[in-house]
């Protein structure tokens, strides 16, 4: 049915196709992190990594330079997003979302305080 010339042409076309999309496939795999093992930045000084109180599931921050304040939009509810979240097309149960009241938070970058907790220590680095 196919002579040698036609088969050769088909093979060349396939190889050319693979070579054309190869770089795109490589980038796709790299961006998706398919073969990546997540790592941790070492922060040996405990004063150099702080947790911000009352900032649960805050997707975005806006820095207002004129007042040197950070504004965050926070969900506050640590469970709701795993039941109903349109940005990831998740629609399992909308009852909590109907009454959810997220919030807007303000952070002054210069303010800090020390806090002691009875729960397990959270290491500042791994």
């Amino acid at each position, binding site marked *: 049915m196919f002579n040698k010339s036609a088969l050769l042409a088909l093979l060349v076309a396939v190889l050319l196709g693979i070579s054309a999309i190869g770089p795109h496939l490589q980038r796709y795999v790299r961006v998706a992190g*398919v073969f990546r093992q997540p790592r941790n930045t070492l922060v040996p000084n405990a004063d150099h990594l702080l947790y*911000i109180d009352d900032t649960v599931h805050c997707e975005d921050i806006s820095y207002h330079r004129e007042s040197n304040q950070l504004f965050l939009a926070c969900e506050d509810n640590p469970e709701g997003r795993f039941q109903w979240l349109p940005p990831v097309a998740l629609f399992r149960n909308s009852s909590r979302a109907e009454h959810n009241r997220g919030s807007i938070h303000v952070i002054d970058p210069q303010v800090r305080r020390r806090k002691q907790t009875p729960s397990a220590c959270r290491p500042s680095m791994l």
Partner: protein
Amino acid sequence: MNWQTKSSRRLEFVNFSGPFNTHGIDVISDPDSTKPAVYIFAVNHVPDPSTCAGSTTHQDCVWRSSSRVEVFHHILGSTTVSHVRSVAHPLISTPNDVLARDPYSFYVTNDYFYKEGPLRQLELMFWPARWSTTIFVEFQRDSPPSATDGVTAKVALEGLYNQNGLSRGRKGEIIIGRAGAGAVEIGHISAENDTISVVDTLYMDSTVDNPSYFTDPYADEMFDGSGYVIAGLARAIDILDTTTKPEALDGSMVWFIPTRPKDNRGVIKASDVTPRLIFEDDGKRLRFATTAVLVGIDPKLEGGQRWAWLFVTGLYSKAAVAVKVNLETFV
């Protein structure tokens, strides 16, 4: 064990009872207020009962969203935030992030064309699906009877895959994070018709989300730490599984692209600079980073060294974190 925390202040709503299912946010100064004040623009995914007509319970039918943008006003230093109005329009379909232009207008990204279903799954994974848009919206300030009254909108940018985060870049720039593509578009806004034209593209080796730009307030002739700050996921491939699991870990990567690197003090093309990895985490300290912002620290407080606080937060993070970074390491 002691660990330090920074405090956040929660603002009390005035004239707003919700629901408020949050996403992107932007803040601009109020140019007309006698007291220092800001306008706050925030995306709100509002469950819509009309999407389940005839149903009486959430178990019978899961409501879908009629997403919109809320506009608030806040007197700086006060404890309250007052609702000005809701803004909705048919072109605001799958809003992700918002960028205010002035108190009466903003840009908003629609990160996908399809809201759910097999075509949404295809759009999520298939880079040639260039169906996302950035919309320019103008609205009247007066309190309207409905969210759509007095609102006009038009497409400002289209033909790109997965437009997601919006921010201001260097002077005159608007920057758009294209999440799944791991790319940040640098654009200019037309003064004639408010559309956006892309002039440069930055590529990261991870997904990206809400980019930001750090303008170093302590820049001098010797050192300028200004640059783009971009948060993303270490293993985006996992989100197909983790978005329904409160206990899952989604690792994060934060990139920094200096725009005044030490080896080139002139104005540069940002895409010529290799992105630096400024912070990464396996998800135990910070899950699913979506935004990172740098705030400079006065060098006089640091013995002349150039440090900054890197604030990172995420869609599923239990708390935002602040990491102290030495900019001299990354510029």
